[in-house]
């Protein structure tokens, strides 16, 4: 039984190059999770991608484990909004 849906913010330290954003967003799209907001900001050779989305805790964990396997993702932090 999955926990109820909650709002999450994923802060992703990604390599700043063509295709990084596509790789990251495909992970969400392939699992039917849409964004409530998405920002991408270049920072000293890297890119900080911030994505806000709604999902169960289980699905949020699956998304993070999958994102962490991408070569373009250097680090990732997931925070529950309001918790």
């Amino acid at each position, binding site marked *: 039984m999955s926990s109820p849906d909650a709002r999450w913010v994923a802060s992703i330290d990604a390599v700043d190059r063509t295709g990084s954003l*596509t*790789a990251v967003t*495909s992970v969400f*799209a*392939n699992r039917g999770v849409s964004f409530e907001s998405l920002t991408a900001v270049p920072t000293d050779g890297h890119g900080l991608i911030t994505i806000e989305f709604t999902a169960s805790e*289980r*699905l949020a*964990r*699956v998304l993070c*484990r*999958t994102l*962490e*396997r*991408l*070569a373009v993702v250097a680090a990732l932090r997931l925070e529950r909004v309001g918790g």
Partner: protein
Amino acid sequence: MDVAVLGATGDVGRAVCAMLIERRVVPSTSRLQLVGRDGGESGRAVHGLRTDLIDAHDEHAPLIDVGLAPEDVVADVVVVAAGRTASTKPGELITREELAAENRAVFEAYAAALAEHGSGHEVVIVVTNPVELGVSILARELGRHRVIGMGAWLDTLRFRRELAQSLGIRRQRVGGYVVGQHGDAMVPLWSTVRIRGLDDDEQARALTALRGPRSLDDFASEVAAAKARLEEREREGIASAFAEIESWPPDIRAVVRPYLTHQSGAKTANGTAAATADLVDTVLDGRDIVVAGQVALEGEALVGGAPFHGVLGVPLVVTPDGWERVLLDPLAPDEDRRLAEVGAGIGRLVAAAGAVR
């Protein structure tokens, strides 16, 4: 969706990876995870394999990721091709029981890691032999509907191909299933064979001509005799042994031709990979499709007049969530007897390896 191949650098693992990319089963927006063993040869080779696959398929390659431990596995479909395979060297034949003893630890390590770290929704396709043992161990940890053994589908494709060859047609015009245990103890269901383009009478005549008066009651002894005969012919040369196979019935050929192919040193990696890619494609396809596979049953099939409990190859409906219904229609008496015998043998193999189901 993402696919992980455990044992990616083995003969079968490599072929599976290449075929998943070539057939576009894993699209360019998804991830193919190559999993090897840290500290082993595969832990080095898996990095090279990643580069080689990108070299070969850069135009449409998926994102390719390397994993080096069971806990690294992250995917929607997991292909288990890790572990030892039977030797191809003369005099180094390994029994299914010996293989079970060696590969049990591999199955258990991945089953435990997927149970602890996985999404709870991965579909696992077991290729490593004994496939029935792998299904038993992984189904126990992950839930039986998420685990499908590939062997029965490969045996089914081989049986269909042999029937098609005898009839002078292509495999896609032949239907029918092989059930039971993968390999020598396969149970070819002649009662399920359908030949497209023939009416019932024409089909019955064609099948009678192909099968003759034989029944599955003698199938095990026929296979044993055929393998002994092949050993004799191999002394005259491998081509002579392959030529001898052509004179045998299709169901016998379906067993012994892959056996000789493996023993020849060529192995059967491409055929195995094609059947595996079929199953992965079926799971990802999103439609309910009937294939054959080894699964852990809890009474969904009647064998020998009773609901069967344990691992057995059966025709089943595969969906993106795993397998659903078993589609084993009432069998001919000789098929039912043989399947009951084979089912009991699988139970003994699984129990002897210490995995109870």
